[in-house]
């Protein structure tokens, strides 16, 4: 049985998909530069943000992740030229669907470059706070889905 966390000391679990070339390096820089940020994000490195099938996001949410962060290179900076433009369309479409189901607040698409260690720390802090405000993913406690 999973105990529902009390909202006050609720620590959201965030699945972070970071692109290898920008955001992962950005997260690395945040670490090397010793910027403080909440330890709520579980990082999965992918070669490009367009590697992320929206299905990954859905799997995370239905299995009970409180939030999903997708981070890639800034538009125009993709290592594979156009990968992140495709990601943007896919996540926009996903967002439209999740809106109907009341889950769209839990998915975040951010652009973080390799030099933006500071920004990575800010992004994670920001979404952790937003999710704390929002409370746990209701599907975390439901098994019959």
């Amino acid at each position, binding site marked *: *049985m*999973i105990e529902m966390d009390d909202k006050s000391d609720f620590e959201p679990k965030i699945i972070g998909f970071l692109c290898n070339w920008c955001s992962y390096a950005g997260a690395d820089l945040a670490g090397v530069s010793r910027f403080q940020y909440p330890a709520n994000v579980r990082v999965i490195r992918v070669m490009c943000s367009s590697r992320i099938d*929206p*299905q990954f996001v*859905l*799997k995370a949410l*239905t*299995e*009970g992740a409180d939030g999903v962060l997708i981070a890639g290179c800034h*538009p*125009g900076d993709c290592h594979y030229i*156009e990968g992140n*433009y*495709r990601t*943007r*369309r*896919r*996540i*926009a*479409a*996903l*967002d*439209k*669907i999740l*809106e*109907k*189901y*009341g*889950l769209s607040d839990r998915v*975040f*698409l*951010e*652009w973080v470059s390799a030099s933006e260690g500071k920004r990575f720390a800010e992004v994670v802090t920001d979404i952790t706070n937003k999710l704390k405000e929002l409370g746990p993913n*209701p*599907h*975390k406690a*439901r*098994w*019959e*889905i």
Partner: protein
Amino acid sequence: MGTYILENEEALKKVLENMLRKGMVEGVMVQTAGESGVFTSIITDPDFISKTAPLAPLFSNNNAVFLQNNGTRNIAVVVKPCEARAINELKKLNQINTDKLVVICADCQGTINPRDGLITEPLTEAKKKELEKDSIPIRKACTVCEHFTPPEVDISIMAIGTTGGYILATDREELLDGLELKAGEIPSGRNAEVEKIRKENLEKKEKMVEELDKKLGSPDTLVEFFKDCIRCDNCRDMCPICYCKQCYFETPLGDLRTDEMLHQAATKGILRIPPDILFYQLTRNIHVAAGCVECGACEEVCPRDIPLLDVWKSITGNVQGLFEYVSGMKRDEPLPLVGFKESELEEVK
């Protein structure tokens, strides 16, 4: 574009027969009356054309499903607008070779599931009233349909706006070789009449979506909505747009055996069987939404009567609207999830 007059359904059959006899096509896929009912069939013998009912308002499944991966031989198909749209969409997805198809599509004024009644004459307003009296329901998808006129096809047949008879319009006039058809004109009042029906249907659709939004908005009601799903995969199999050769839910990751089920159960301590009901439905949503033609075939085959069409009506417009795209209307245009613009969707992040 050539436009010709067809006096009645028989004239359309003549067109089919001519194509078959002249060898322009090797077969015709069309609805045919058999002894136990009316079935979609592929006809190679022109003598069977007399038994066909090309404009019968019946829909039991979207026949575009069966045209996927068509071969090298020419075939003419008589389809409903939703099926024609699915064919166009599958063409863009490289699943159908439209060069080998002659797609013939007529205005559709609603269809009936053959299990509810066997009607072979095309629906008109008067006929619809009659059906209502006999309490034979028109399919739900048809009552809220926005695209009931032919999309881009080889031969389109127009019924709305004409005073009896049909207008045939085609860019491929070689398909009519040997027939003496009278030239006609697209009736002037047609557009107004089409818009009138579209507006009526749109109103009904909006009401449907409004009702659904009340049901789906919260996580609890969302679970409630899909709770009866038994993962029979009927909706997937009968969906023309759900075309993957290997579905995720047939791979070891998606089709779990007990060892994996135990592993997955450990996350929450308990696991419903069959697993991943919501995940399955949401996956279908994201995979299909950009191409959904809203034919309602999924709901038709759902053994647990989940109102799936309502879901599609609710999300398809939103997703396709985002990219200013309407699925299946044209044969050559970039798919929304394949193309992109450099500056767009700034608000997403």
